[in-house]
């Protein structure tokens, strides 16, 4: 039987939840010496990585080659040339592909490691990307200071990488980071457009379909969108949702038209509306939405879910998971029809990732 491991990044370290049946879970942690964790992955070679940033000691990546038994930290090479005037305040985005590790930073930059996370080198500061001239201005940076918050490398071509710059849009490179092209056509904003109208969108989370490379979804600051051409153009699918604001979302593991999002009150609370925990599902690519609440707390549940807080595994009867700002983790094994709470009293959760071990 496959073993499922949830990698739960929190404000106070990384936790690992493990299960053979995805119903009974055992929890280990906190790992990473209790550093704030922004994302975590289990790479194909079995190494765990977690992006972390300490108020005291800066930013770097924790790694474990034995599923959390022992850990090492490295920030070696995660720095900008002194003459650039840039500082690494945080690392958040994290991906592994084609034998390398990619890490996103604030100030905005993309770093890579080709030795399993021991050392890093600067791949790109996205120099030349439209709008970049304001990204590292502290007065222009969005709360959270995630910087390069998401990295989605092409599985077949390491020259191709898609990234999200927090508060400033999605960009693609097809030449290994030398040049960057905005991928935001069709998105909407509710603030003044910058000089280039193709940038300046507040993309919170991209969710590509695992079964159709052309089908993507995104939850952003002002709505929910779908792309049918790999992200070149976006169509708004917000209608039917009770709020346009949200962070976390996930695509169905096997059906391109099914997608999940967790919308929130857009005001200061940024928690689920009316104290009722709900996940929203579309089975028709956004034409209609269903509210999923069975097993979720229905009252006095003032919780949020951050952008990396929801994930689906790839098993045949796939599991869907999300972690909350108040330290709960919920799971569904029936496509969202019902939910189980598998953890509580964790520190505020930043990310939930999943791995299936044979």
């Amino acid at each position, binding site marked *: 039987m496959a073993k499922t491991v949830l990698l739960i990044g929190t404000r106070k370290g990384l936790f690992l939840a493990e299960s053979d049946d995805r119903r009974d879970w055992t929890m280990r942690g906190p790992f990473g*010496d209790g550093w704030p964790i922004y994302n975590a992955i289990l790479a194909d070679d079995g190494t765990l990585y977690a992006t972390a940033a300490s*108020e005291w000691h*800066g930013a770097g990546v924790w790694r474990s080659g034995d599923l959390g038994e022992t850990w090492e*930290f490295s920030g*070696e090479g995660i720095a900008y*040339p002194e003459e650039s005037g840039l500082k690494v305040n945080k690392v958040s985005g994290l991906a592994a592909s084609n034998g390398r590790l990619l890490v996103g930073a604030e100030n905005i930059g993309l770093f890579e490691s080709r030795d399993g996370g021991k050392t890093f080198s600067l791949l790109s500061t996205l120099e030349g990307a439209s709008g970049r001239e304001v990204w590292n201005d502290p007065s222009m940076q969005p709360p959270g200071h995630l910087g390069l918050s998401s990295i989605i490398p092409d599985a077949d071509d390491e020259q191709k990488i898609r990234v999200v710059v927090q508060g400033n849009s999605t960009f693609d490179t097809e030449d290994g980071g030398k040049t960057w092209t905005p991928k935001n056509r069709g998105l909407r904003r509710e603030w003044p457009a910058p000089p280039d109208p193709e940038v300046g969108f507040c993309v919170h989370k991209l969710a590509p379909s695992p079964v159709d490379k052309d089908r993507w979804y995104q939850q952003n600051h002002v709505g929910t969108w779908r792309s049918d051409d790999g992200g070149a153009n976006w169509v708004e699918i917000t209608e039917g949702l009770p709020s346009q604001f949200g962070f976390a979302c996930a695509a169905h593991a096997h059906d391109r038209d099914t997608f999940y999002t967790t919308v929130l009150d857009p005001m200061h609370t940024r928690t689920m509306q009316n104290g009722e925990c709900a996940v929203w599902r579309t089975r028709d690519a956004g034409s209609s939405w269903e509210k999923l609440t069975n097993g979720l707390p229905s009252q006095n549940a003032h919780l949020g879910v951050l952008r990396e807080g929801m994930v689906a595994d790839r098993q045949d009867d796939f599991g869907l998971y999300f972690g909350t700002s108040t330290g709960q983790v919920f799971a569904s094994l029936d496509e969202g029809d019902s939910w189980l709470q598998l953890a509580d009293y964790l520190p505020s959760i930043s990310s939930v990732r999943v791995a299936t071990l044979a």
Partner: protein
Amino acid sequence: MCDVHLPSTLKPLFAGLPRHLDIEAATVGDAIAELDRRWPGLQDRLCHPGPQLRKHIHVYVDGDRGDLTTPVGDRSRLDVIAAISGG
């Protein structure tokens, strides 16, 4: 030799790093550079490139707040503090 006292939060990052040790150094910056020579990467955990001390890393020489240029004497005590406000 100055008597260097390091924060406990550094220990998990560097194998064999003690909390207290004696370092031959003329300034705080020299002391941190010597620590970095012995435990590569340690300076990056205390300083931004430049180097300059990270925002929440404070140093005290014989009880007085200092910076990287502050001289340390043969019998100085150098405290490196991981300091942050909060509750």
